[in-house]
């Protein structure tokens, strides 16, 4: 299938103030030269720890933060160049599901108005059409019609996330960015939302960019996975090869760190503990960003930054030792 989203050399930088004179400007590259593609109808998961740049990358794709350089092409069109009415049209095609269903819904609006809002601001539909769409959306996400009149505080966490999902679906987007959509929910409710997301994907042919730190959830939801560390993609592969043969030492450590209920797996798998903390994102080391914590780092890793290289099967890894 064709690529719906093609991100090339995307960088996002923030200006940070550091001591040492009034005019000393420093830049923090939250996303640094990142490229990936997502096929239509598939799910790309971006995993990484806090501060790895996964959310910033997603926000840049949705034009919610400004990209410093690079291109984001949606169905062949670079959306970073779009402005005004053109941008409004594009926003209908890219929608966002936020992490925290408690802070991402306006407490003073009724559920129906929340779900209708993207239609009000982005589309030119009549009131009757909008009401019909809202009815359909409530049904699609498993909420009852009479709940349209309620306010966010009258819903449980899982139901609120359903409202957030309905809102994201309102403009019939091609790409939905899910930023940690279940990490604020209780485990039993997580399963309900994950099943719903998969069902909607199947029914409406949606494409997901799925941001998560939970590798179990990622394994269940995604078709391919990009692992980010300190603003860079360090490994990118399809679901089976990433979990079966993780190559980057960081990915290996990440996978081994997940606690598991499987007693056999715990017995046979040795946990790779990576010591210390990530480096200062403003003063990045010269070589590989993971070198100071890497259990297998060699001399070259301290001086030369590895490139993201692809093998014959499209499994991309940024490591000198692979």
């Amino acid at each position, binding site marked *: 299938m064709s690529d719906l989203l093609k991100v090339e050399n995307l960088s996002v930088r923030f200006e940070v103030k550091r001591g040492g004179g009034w005019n000393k400007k420093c830049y923090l590259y939250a996303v640094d030269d990142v490229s990936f593609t997502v096929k239509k109808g598939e799910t790309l998961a971006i995993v990484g720890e*806090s501060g790895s740049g996964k959310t910033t990358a997603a926000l840049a794709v949705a034009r919610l933060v400004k990209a410093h350089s690079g291109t984001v092409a949606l169905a062949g069109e670079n959306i970073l160049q779009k402005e005004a009415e053109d941008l409004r049209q594009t926003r209908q095609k890219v929608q966002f599901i936020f992490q925290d269903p408690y802070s991402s819904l306006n407490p003073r609006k009724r559920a129906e108005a929340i779900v209708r809002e993207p239609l009000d601001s982005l589309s030119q539909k009549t009131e009757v059409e909008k009401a019909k769409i809202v009815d359909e959306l409530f049904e699609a996400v498993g909420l009852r019609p009479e709940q349209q009149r309620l306010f966010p505080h009258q819903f449980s966490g899982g139901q609120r996330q359903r409202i957030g999902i309905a809102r994201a679906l309102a403009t019939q987007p091609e790409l939905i960015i899910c930023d940690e959509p279940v990490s604020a929910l*209780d*485990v*039993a409710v997580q399963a309900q939302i994950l099943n719903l997301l998969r069902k909607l994907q199947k029914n409406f042919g949606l494409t997901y960019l799925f941001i998560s730190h939970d590798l179990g959830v990622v394994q269940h939801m995604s078709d391919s996975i990009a692992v980010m560390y300190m603003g860079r993609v360090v490994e990118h592969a399809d679901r089976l090869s990433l*979990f079966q043969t993780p190559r980057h030492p960081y990915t290996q450590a990440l996978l081994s*760190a997940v606690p598991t209920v499987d007693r056999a797996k*715990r017995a046979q798998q040795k946990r790779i503990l990576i010591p210390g*903390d990530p480096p200062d994102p403003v003063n990045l080391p010269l070589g590989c960003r993971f070198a100071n914590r890497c259990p297998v780092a060699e001399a070259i890793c301290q001086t030369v930054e590895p490139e993201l290289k692809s093998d014959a099967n499209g499994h991309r890894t940024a490591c000198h030792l692979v």
Partner: protein
Amino acid sequence: MSHLLEVKNLRIELTTRDGVAPVIDDLSFTLNPGETLSFVGESGCGKSMTALALMGLLPEKVGRVAAGNIIFNGEDLSQASDQRLRAIRGNDISMIFQEPMTSLNPVFTIGEQIAEVLRAHQGLSRRTAWAQAIELLDAVRIPNAKDRVSDYPFQMSGGQRQRAMIAMALACQPKILIADEPTTALDVTVQAQIFDLLTDLRNQTGAAIILITHDMGAVAEMAERMIVMYAGRKAELGPVDQIIEHPRHPYTKGLIECVPHIQSNPSIERHDLVEVPGIVPSLREFGKDQCLFASRCAYLTEACLTSRPDEKHFANGQSADCWHAEAI
């Protein structure tokens, strides 16, 4: 072996606008020296309330121990005076909280906060307490502890702050360490470091750990026994591996099955996750004479709605409060 802690028929009531709700309802369990016991359940099931009750930290005027005993080393903590509880807290029983940023005082250095515990409980001088704070930071593997001891919390990463919290909790060599979701705010690789540290420290000091979590994987890695809580009541209790292999309560079963567990060899086909429909009942429902899980349960029968299930016992101390436990 005598128990380090014995909780008998504990009932904790919270006064709410809708009346009095038993947020802990008839809970009994024991804790042995050097053991890790885990409390599991969704939010609002009474896990943290149990911890607060053990520490004598129930919200004033709102919460109270209505019945039952908390016997620690032969002493009933539910009857103890505030003064006595203050002497025990942080000394014999200490606690690590979920969010290391908000539970440290931002205007004092890490060293001052650790030294305060030692000075209050052990009457150490400023200088000795400070020296011990450095040793403790070293013990929780904060590199360069001698310099970091005069850092403020904001100068540390999340993982380091949680280590500092652990150092503080361990300062007086407590007999029980209560860890309330100690890694929920942390990344997985840091979580692995913290678990590793807790296990090592437990083996060195012989402290018993009460680990409160919602993550079945964490329970499996850390604990020997677990208690599954639902709506203020014990749903199931027993050895961790045995329960994971064969849960006897439908809620435990749901908790284990609803999570997409990571596999090293995933299948191409993916099935829908098992859902536990619905949500935890509201406080108003707590204390009813029926099974509180009934509305979400696949094994529902008439009996579940008319009386509270009895405790059914199985091998190795496993027990489940469900009318259908034998059939599951």
